[in-house]
């Protein structure tokens, strides 16, 4: 496949952008891609990544959408509005991930698929992650016990969960 722009070099950069729910693919050589400011994920061009994310989130294309309440809600930690994140493609702080969890979910899914973190866990706070994973496991067992109508076992598990939840604060 040749580059759509110069039609000379082989296309090595393949961009898939979501635009109004429609997938638009662009195939470029690296030279044209970098001239166009398009981006290979992971390269060191933060501006173009921001542009791309902006378009992921539906902004940047001159399409004026009604400002829903979500657009005007802001992150309790840094104060940034979701509207601004859409415009710039830049999050304000780490807590924005929690504050706008639902709004960000579709674009994060588009970038990363359904994947979950399996890498390093920080030493600090790592304990909490382990406890949280333990609690999730217990909750699963609790449901199973209830389904089997093993109420004594269920009560035991419920107490374990309560204890763990106390420790995690």
């Amino acid at each position, binding site marked *: 496949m040749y580059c759509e722009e110069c039609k000379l*070099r*082989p296309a*090595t*950069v*393949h961009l898939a952008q979501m635009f109004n729910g429609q997938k638009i693919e662009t195939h470029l*050589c*690296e*030279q044209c*891609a*970098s*001239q166009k400011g398009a981006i*290979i*994920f*992971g*390269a*060191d061009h*933060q501006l173009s*990544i*921001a542009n791309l*994310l902006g378009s992921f989130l539906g902004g940047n294309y001159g399409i004026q959408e009604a400002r829903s309440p979500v657009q005007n809600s802001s992150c309790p*930690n*840094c104060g*940034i509005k979701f509207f601004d994140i859409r415009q710039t493609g*830049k*999050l*304000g*702080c*780490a*807590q924005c*991930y*929690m504050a706008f969890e639902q709004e*960000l979910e579709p*674009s*994060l899914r588009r*970038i*990363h*698929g359904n*994947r*979950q*973190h*399996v*890498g*390093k*866990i*920080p*030493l*600090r*706070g790592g304990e909490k*992650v382990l406890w*949280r*994973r333990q609690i999730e496991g217990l909750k699963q067992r609790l449901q199973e016990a209830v389904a089997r109508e093993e109420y004594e076992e269920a009560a035991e598990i419920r107490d374990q969960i309560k204890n763990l939840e106390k420790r995690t604060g």
Partner: protein
Amino acid sequence: MRKPRKSVIRLKIWKRERDKEVGGMTIKKLFEETFLAWMNGETAIHSDIVISSRVRLARNLSEIAFPHLLNQESGQKFMQLINEAWQKSEFKELKQMELVTFENLSALDRKILVEKHLISPNHAQSTAFYQGLLVKPDGSLAVMINEEDHLRIQCFLPGLQLEEAYRRSQEIDDALEKELDFAFDDRRGYLTSCPTNIGTGMRASLMLHLPAISISGQSGHIFHNLNQLGLTVRGIYGEGTEAIGNFFQLSNQITLGQSEEDINASLTTISQQVIEQERMLRESLREQMKYQLEDRIGRAYGILTHARLISSNEALTLLSDVRLGIDMGMIPRISANALNELVVDIRPAHLQKKAGSDMDAVSRDAKRAEVIREKLQTGEEES
């Protein structure tokens, strides 16, 4: 009134008081000399093709706004936290590092750091007191402060050794994390300023010299396959596949859903195939185009050892030929260290630093030719 003390190197704003261990290697060397740990290619694995390995970990504090939203107040708070974490740490390698901030570092010195690959060109645009570099004077470890993320912990080593580069960068991560609350989410991993980097927050890269792949016209095809495998390839100098000097950066795209170890292992395995390919193509060039190749390399060596004016692009291109000629035993050996150093030495900021003054284009080209001639002579080993 106390007169403000003007330090000789101006750039030392933060200082670890109790540290006398840094010894001979001072931060000054980082700006005045070229050689860094990653240039030490003499004994490193596959260092004829893999110039260097870099691992970069993105980390952010959970309570503080990302770099693009920092102001005087939050920037101050941030620097206090970082400074404390660094001062308090008992971890040896972190203690050996120095904190340099950009507000009174000259544009030239910031460019020096870019040319040494320690900071990004974007980062070099910064002049804020809360932006800078926590760096080990040998350049093996460098933490970019408030580039796109609060911290980008980087380890640079010569040759193919991603595992070791990861080990060392994550030791710095552990040491800093003892004092700092890094933003982390059970499901999404380390939270980064740009959502494309969440998860491990890790970017592992190899700097490769691939002249035979370029000469034989295989790069488009090979790089396309690498892209399909989830890797990014780009030219380090120049643009895209027409990388000047045939230096390429190969790095992982995926940061979520794979462990750091797996990412490094797969990048290492794939790069070994690229290395294999490059070696094979070198041999077939030798078989099929012996005279053309020897001629090309001989001419490159002749120009570099005799030119009086040379542009950056021409120098990089010819140095690639010379490097290939050395690897293939066609011209006298010049140490890998000298060659690695030379690629950085001939860049504008390093030349200007060496000359000690602003230069016009002609005097820069003259200085470049002089630096190359000298280096190729002193770097030449007895054969």
